[in-house]
């Protein structure tokens, strides 16, 4: 029964789309049916307004299309149909209503413009300066209609908020809000569970193995600076590795490719040794700068790994082409290897060559996972809300795109209502 209802609903939606499309198709003329005189009749109702909610450097122009301008489908164009108005000439003057005007754009309407019967164009201008605009419909060859012109000067003003990023702001508020809400709920005692992450469970095992073998632990925090969030996440895991090493009395070596990462890592390891009650065991010379140069860094690390043969290698941070060289070298010396990165292109290499890999979000969840603090675990729950929103957006977007294709195939109208919604989703919300 439910399946039938679902099927009926889908069919109904398709029928709605088709009906809308048929009405829209009636509104669209095919230029192939009639040629117009040269030059075309002018556009009409030109207006210029300050672009709402921007930095004050844009003005929106709107005008009704020339009566001679009509939609020519791609199929008709292939068959030789010619548009009576190939494009519109848009001119701007910052000197006065009498000009001189200079070309700022030559723009052709798209199918959505034909559906509305009007066009919109956003022009870049200087903030606070007056501008006048005029538009002419271009005909075949060099001919063009009379210009229509704005009567008043338009001035772009800066607003307090960038409206073009409004949807992003909303999504940010929802995501951050859910993270903050769950952190607060966790502080109030909400019960939270996190699935086991094998890579993080293996930290103790790896450090323990190094201790047993009497060899060092090598920690590589990637090749990016401290302004990269992956480096911050890597340093977070270093704190745990260093604390475990301090407890087991193992040596942790951290060669870095950035000076700031070196100083941060020193602070982190020193605090970890202090927290473990072994401040005397801390040796800052084990955390040192090598070079900023990618392959110079790799050459040093590869040589050092082959010579000193650390028992455990951690690769936590942002990696590029060096990921596989490091992981394969570590593999060749028999070290237990744990990697974590948010570089999707490097994940397959780490998965192939390391014993454990923290894939994407697991890497960022490490801090919460290792600390076990309720407020940090709450942030993971907040992330789940984000995943739900993304999943819903994916589902809705796929439905719109699929239905738009079906309607296009059945009615031949690509500017149908589902395509409009899909366009709104991709061009406005996710721009």
């Amino acid at each position, binding site marked *: 029964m439910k399946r039938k209802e679902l099927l009926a609903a889908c069919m109904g939606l398709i029928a709605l789309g088709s009906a809308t499309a048929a009405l829209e198709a009636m509104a669209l003329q095919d230029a192939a049916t009639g040629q117009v005189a040269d030059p075309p009749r002018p556009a009409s109702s030109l207006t210029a307004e300050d672009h709402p909610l921007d930095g004050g450097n844009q003005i929106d122009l709107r005008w009704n299309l020339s009566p001679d301008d009509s939609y020519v489908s791609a199929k008709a164009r292939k068959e030789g149909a010619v548009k009576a108005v190939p494009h519109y000439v848009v001119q701007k003057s910052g000197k006065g209503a009498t000009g001189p005007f200079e070309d700022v754009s030559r723009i052709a309407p798209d199918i959505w413009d034909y559906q509305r019967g009007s066009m919109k164009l956003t022009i870049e201008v200087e903030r606070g300066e007056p501008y006048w605009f005029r538009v002419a419909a271009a005909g075949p060859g060099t001919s063009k209609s009379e210009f229509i012109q704005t009567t008043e000067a338009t001035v772009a003003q800066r607003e307090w908020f960038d409206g073009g990023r409004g949807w992003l702001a909303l999504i940010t508020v929802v995501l951050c809000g859910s993270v903050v809400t769950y952190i607060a709920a966790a502080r109030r005692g909400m019960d939270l569970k996190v699935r086991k992450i094998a890579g993080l469970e293996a930290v103790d095992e790896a450090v323990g193995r190094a201790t047993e073998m009497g060899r060092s632990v090598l920690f590589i925090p990637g090749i990016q600076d401290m302004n990269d969030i992956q480096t911050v996440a890597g340093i977070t895991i270093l704190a745990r590795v260093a604390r475990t090493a301090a407890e087991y009395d193992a040596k942790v070596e951290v060669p870095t490719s950035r000076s700031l990462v070196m100083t941060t890592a020193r602070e982190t390891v020193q*605090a970890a040794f202090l927290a473990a009650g072994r401040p005397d065991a801390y040796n800052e010379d084990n955390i*040192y700068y090598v070079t900023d140069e990618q392959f110079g860094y790799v050459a040093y690390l590869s040589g050092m790994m082959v010579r000193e043969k650390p028992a455990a290698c951690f690769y936590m941070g942002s990696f590029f082409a060096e990921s596989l060289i490091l992981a394969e070298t570590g593999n060749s010396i028999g070290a237990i290897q744990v990697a974590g990165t948010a570089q999707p292109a490097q994940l397959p290499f780490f998965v192939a060559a390391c014993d454990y890999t923290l894939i994407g979000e697991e890497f960022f969840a490490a801090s919460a996972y290792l600390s076990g603090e309720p407020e940090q675990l709450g942030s993971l729950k907040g992330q789940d809300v984000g995943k739900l929103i993304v999943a819903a957006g994916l589902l809705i977007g796929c439905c719109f795109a699929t239905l738009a294709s079906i309607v296009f195939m059945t009615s031949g109208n690509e500017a149908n209502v589902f395509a409009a919604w899909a366009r709104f989703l991709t061009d406005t919300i996710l721009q």
Partner: protein
Amino acid sequence: MKRTVPLLITAIGGFVLIVAYFIPATESWGEVAAIWFDVLASVAFILGGGNLLRVHLQKASDRKPGWGYSVITLLAFILMLFVGLTKWGAPPAVNQEFYGETFAELAPASLPDGLVATVEGRLPQRQDHRWLPASVRVQFSHDPLAGTISFRGWMRPNQRNDLLSYKETLEWRCAVERLYTKSRESSLGGRASYYADHRSLSFRGRMSAEDRDALLKISGDSQWTATVNSIYERSQRVTSVDIPGLPPTLRLPDDLAGAANLDSQRGRLEITGPMTAAQREALGRNWQMFPLARPLDSAHRAALLDELRGLGPITAEQETAFHKTLDGSWTASLLRTTLEEAGKGQEQDKTNCEMFAELQAGITDIKLKKPPGPDVPLTEAHVGIINRFTEGEFEDLVAFVAAMKGAGDFTSRQEDAFWTFVEKNPTVGERDREIAVRLLREGPLNAAQRDRLLSEMRAQVAWRKGVGELFVAAHDVKYPWSGEYRAQGTPFWWLYEYAFKPLTATMFAMLAFYVASAAFRAFRAKNLEATLLLGTAFIILLGRTFAGVWLTAWLPDAVSGLRIEKLTVLIMQVFNTAGSRAIMIGIALGIASTSLKVLLGVDRSYLGSAEE
């Protein structure tokens, strides 16, 4: 406190960046925050360098295992630091040197009042309160009460353009144009300049005694006089270069004789004062010394071919190539078309003052351009002169232009088009070299034949090289340390190109072998998932090779989707994209959550401990 301060800095910096992204008025805050990070990172680099020295010195001193590598690292570090910091061998920056000009220091306040140009006009207000362009702030002034604007010194074209772009109104632009014209009245044809940001008076080319006197007339101030005299004395310096291989008969044309002197017997070229770019161009490609190649008719071609045959054998293929090369030469009709095109009436830009006058006259549709003037077609007499020129008459190209002018209307645009035509088409030396290259492609030429065809070009190249060397030698270097440390030919560049880059490329090349060893382990078919992975990898690998296409090309169109190259595309675009996007979404959410925790101070573990 040790933890609180970094937390505060992080939180404030992070929130500033977020706010700057959404609120236009605070956009610059984000830029400032980013600059602060760069400053911090630069300072930290010194820390890193110091640490590197300490670690490796200690390792070498203690003779720890691998200390030899430390010694090499230290030596390389010090060597690169030395050649990089000293900019050893790096030429000064071209955009800082003002080639062809002589500088003498002069404070803006010391510019004489006689150099202040004033015209009627008002500085317009801008709603965004933008400052005047930095290039004119020192020299430009305005008097709102008197309704005048003034400029101290000679306004340069870039300063004029900066002022024009300050406001678009025709009234302002016209006032700027008038100020520009007035300020340059005493600039001796634009050769005298003042650079406020360099605090220097400048003179382009050699300053003659007349030029000096004209400048001294502007003011009797002692500082001004001393500055002008300083430039005059320095611009009398004579510089010379030796140019071997020049024909002894080579003479400088009369119009360049004042700019430079050539002693062709000794092969020495000399110039007084700095050489300007225009002088370098005029000397380097001179039609009187290296004449334009005219199209050769059959008689001349036969003569040249016979001359070459007289020096050695020429094959039938070489003869064909010889004629093909000469067939590509310019023709009389090409020159005629060029001059006819240049004679057509062209639209010309109006000045801002012309447009402003139209505005005041009440014209409602002001155009940017003037209507095109009448066409100036070539007459029969012109065509006759062109034909004679093509056949080899008028060795003196100036005489050709004079003949064209004498035969009827011949505009300056047409004259310019002719000189451009001369510049674009090959000289006799260039034509002969082209013949030599084409003949050598078809067969051998003996030494005598090569010398016959290339001697003219050799002299031309030697001459241009000599002119270039003289241009650099005659220059008075102003900022010797301004060059790019990685400039081509410097020791730093050499070390970077021939030591550093091959070494890093070697490291990168090792990746190919590591990929093979990792793939061997990853694709071992020990269970169902691994078998699927192996199968997919096999399809992708095959699909990216020619073999893949060849293996399944036989499949009919009805099942063409099963062809390996199409399966590869399907796997990469659908399955691979879906998987990587899922990971990307998780990463994006993780980054947002982690950033928020860091900003709010919930996660302090990157500082070493959650506790204060």
